[in-house]
C-alpha cells in the first residue's frame, strides 16, 4: 500500500515537472519566433528582381540601425555574405527547435545570444533573421532553476509521504495483527504496543486499548457472575433434587409440594433480581425520571420497615429536611432505600438506633443512613457491591447477595454517588444526588 501510494505520487510529480519544463520552453520561444516571423513577412512583401535587392538591403540597414536587438545576414545562393550586420557566421550554430537556429555572436556591444530563422528569397538568395534572446534566456534560466527547485521539493514530498504512509500502514497493520490475534486466540489480555506518544495513531491505539480494558473487565465480571450464579443455584438445586428424590415412592402431601415450590421460587427470585440489575444497568429508563421529594419517599420506606425494625426493638431517628427534590424514578429509589434500610435493620443489634438524614447543601442532596451494627471493614468496602458478594457478617443471614449490586445499579442510573464510611460504631452509607433543577 505504502509503496503503491509513493509510486503514484512519484509518477504524478514527474508528469507535472515535464509539463512545466516543456510548457516554459515553448512559451518562451513563441514570442521570439513571432517577432522573427514579423520581420520575414515584411521581407516577403518586397517585390522581385534587382529592385528587390536594393529594397531589402535598405530595409535591413534601416532596421538594424533602429533596433539593436535585430540582426540580419543576406547571402547569395553560394552562401556568400551580401549585406546585414552578421558578417561572419559563428561556429556554434545549433538547432533550438524545428526551423529555429541558436548561436552566439561577438559584436561591438559584447557577446550576444541569438535565435534565428532563415528565409529563402525567390531568387535563391537567403536572409537570416536573428533576434537577441539574452533577456529571455535569463528568464529561461530562472525557469529552469525554479523547475529544479520544484523537482527537489517534489522528491522530498514523495520521500516524506513514503515515510508517513509506511509509518501509518505499519501501525495500522500492527493494530490489525493484534486484533486478529485477539480474535483467533480468544485472548482478551493482549494489547496494542504503543511506542510513540505524539501521533494520532498512537492516540487511537491507546483508545482501543482502553476499550479492550473495559471489555476485559466486563468479560471477567460476566464470568464471575456466571460462576456465582452457577454456585449460588447449584446448592439449592442439589437440595431440591435430593428432596424430590426423598419423596420418591412416598405419598406426596401438599406441604411437601409447598416446600419444593418455595425453594424454586427463591431461585426464580435470584434470576429476577439479576435481570433487574441488568435492565437498570442498561439504563433505558432515564425518560421515566421526574421530580421526586426524597424526604417523602424515605418516610414511606421507613414506614414499610418500621414493623420489621420493631421486632428487633430497633428505632429510627429521622432528620429529614423538607423539600429535598431530585430527578429520578420513584420505584427504583424506593427499591434503593428499601435495600439499604433492609441491610441496616439486618445488621443492627437489638435495641439500637438507625439514623436517617436527608439534607440539601451546596448543589447536592445528601442521604445518610447510619446503623450501629458491625460495619464493613475497609478491605471489603468495594467488594460488597459485587454480585453475590456476602461479607462474613452476612453469611448466616437470609438474602441473595444482590441487594447492594442492585442499589449500586440504581445509584449509577441516577448519576448519584454512593459511598461507605465508618460510623461510630457501625456503618454509614452516603448517597449524594444532584438536586432537581
Amino acid at each position, binding site marked *: 500500500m505504502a509503496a503503491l501510494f509513493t509510486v503514484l505520487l512519484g509518477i504524478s510529480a514527474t508528469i507535472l515537472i515535464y509539463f512545466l519544463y516543456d510548457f516554459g520552453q515553448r512559451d518562451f520561444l513563441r514570442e521570439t519566433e513571432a517577432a522573427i516571423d514579423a520581420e520575414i513577412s515584411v521581407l516577403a512583401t518586397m517585390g522581385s528582381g534587382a529592385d528587390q535587392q536594393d529594397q531589402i538591403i535598405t530595409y535591413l540597414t534601416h532596421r538594424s540601425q533602429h533596433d539593436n536587438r535585430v540582426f540580419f545576414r543576406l547571402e547569395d545562393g553560394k552562401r556568400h555574405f551580401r549585406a546585414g550586420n552578421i558578417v561572419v557566421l559563428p561556429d556554434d550554430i545549433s538547432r533550438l527547435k524545428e526551423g529555429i537556429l541558436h548561436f552566439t555572436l561577438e559584436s561591438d556591444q559584447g557577446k550576444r545570444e541569438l535565435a534565428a530563422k532563415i528565409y529563402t528569397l525567390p531568387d535563391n538568395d537567403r536572409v537570416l533573421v536573428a533576434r537577441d534572446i539574452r533577456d529571455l534566456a535569463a528568464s529561461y534560466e530562472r525557469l529552469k532553476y525554479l523547475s529544479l527547485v520544484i523537482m527537489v521539493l517534489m522528491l522530498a514530498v514523495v520521500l516524506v509521504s513514503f515515510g508517513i504512509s509506511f509509518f501509518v500502514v505499519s501501525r495500522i497493520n500492527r493494530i490489525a495483527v493484534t486484533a486478529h490475534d485477539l480474535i483467533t486466540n480468544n485472548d482478551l489480555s493482549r494489547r496494542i504496543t504503543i511506542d510513540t506518544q505524539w501521533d494520532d495513531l498512537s492516540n487511537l491505539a491507546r483508545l482501543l486499548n482502553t476499550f479492550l480494558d473495559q471489555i476485559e473487565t466486563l468479560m471477567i465480571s460476566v464470568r464471575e457472575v456466571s460462576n456465582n450464579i452457577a454456585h449460588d443455584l447449584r446448592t439449592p438445586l442439589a437440595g431440591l433434587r435430593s428432596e424430590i428424590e426423598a419423596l420418591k415412592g412416598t405419598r406426596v402431601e401438599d406441604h411437601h409440594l409447598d416446600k419444593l*415450590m*418455595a425453594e424454586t421460587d427463591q431461585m426464580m427470585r435470584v434470576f*429476577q433480581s439479576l*435481570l433487574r440489575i441488568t435492565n437498570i444497568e442498561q439504563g433505558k*429508563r432515564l425518560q*421515566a425520571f421526574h421530580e421526586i421529594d426524597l424526604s417523602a419517599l424515605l418516610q414511606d420506606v421507613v414506614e414499610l420497615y418500621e*414493623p420489621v425494625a420493631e421486632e428487633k426493638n430497633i428505632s429510627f431517628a429521622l432528620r429529614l429536611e423538607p423539600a429535598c427534590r431530585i430527578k429520578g424514578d420513584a*420505584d427504583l429509589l424506593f*427499591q434503593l432505600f428499601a435495600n439499604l434500610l433492609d441491610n441496616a435493620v439486618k445488621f443492627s443489634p437489638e435495641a439500637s438506633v438507625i439514623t436517617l438524614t436527608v439534607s440539601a447543601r451546596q448543589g447536592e442532596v445528601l442521604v445518610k443512613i447510619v446503623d450501629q451494627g458491625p460495619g464493613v471493614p475497609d478491605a471489603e468496602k468495594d467488594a460488597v457491591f459485587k454480585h453475590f458478594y456476602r461479607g462474613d457478617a452476612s453469611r448466616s443471614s437470609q*438474602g441473595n447477595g444482590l441487594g447492594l449490586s442492585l442499589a449500586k445499579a440504581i445509584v449509577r442510573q441516577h448519576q448519584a454517588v454512593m459511598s461507605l464510611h465508618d460510623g461510630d460504631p457501625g456503618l454509614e452509607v452516603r448517597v449524594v444526588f444532584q438536586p432537581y433543577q
Partner: protein
Amino acid sequence: MRILVIEDDQKIRAYIEKGLTEAGHIVDVASDGETGLHLAVHEKYDVLVVDRMLPKVDGLFIIRELRGTGNLTGVLILSSLGDVDDRVTGLRSGGDDYLVKPFAFVELLARVEALGKRSARVQSQQGTVLKAGGLEMDLLARKVHADGKLVELQAREFKLLEYLMRFKGQLVTRTMLLEAVWDYHFDPQTSVIDVHISRLRKKLGDKNNTIIKTVRGAGYIVEDSF
C-alpha cells in the same frame, strides 16, 4: 369466569390454560394478535390475559383498540421485558394489571381473579361498608370493628385491610399488596409484608390466623366467613 388468553408462546399458553381451567374457569386461547383481537371484540369475557409482544397485532394495540370501542373488560398484560417503563406504557394504554414473565402461577391466578372481581364491581357498585365474618369496615368513617369492638388502625394498616377485604374469599399475593397499598413497584427481598400482616392480625385480635389466612408460598386470604 370466561377468560381469553392471547399468548404466542405455546408452552406458556398451555400452562396458563391448564392452570386456569383447573381453577374452574372457562378458557379460550389465541396464539396471535389478530385472532385474539377478533375473539375479544366478538365474544364476551370477564378477563383478558394479553402478552405484550404478539405476532401480527401487538398486545398494546389490542388493548387500545378494545378501550377505544368502550370495552372495559379487565386486562392483565404479560411481559418478558420487566422494565418499569414498559409497565408504565402498558398500564397507560389501558391495561389494568401487569405481570412480568417468569411468574408463579398463583400470582397470575390471584391477579386474574382480582381483575374479574373488579370488573364485576364496576357493574354493581360496592357499598361503603365492607364485611367479612365478624369484621366490619366503614370506608367513609374510616372505622374498623372486629366482633363489635372498635379497632384502631394506622392509615397504612387500614389500606392493607381494605384491600384484603375488597377481595375477600380470594387470594391476594404479597406483590399485589405492595403495589396496591404502598403504591411502589419493587422487590422487597425480605418478608416485610409478612411483618405488617402479623401486626395487623395482632390488632384485630386474630390469634390463630383465622381472619387473615396465610397461603404458603403465595399470599393471604380473608375468607368470607370464619
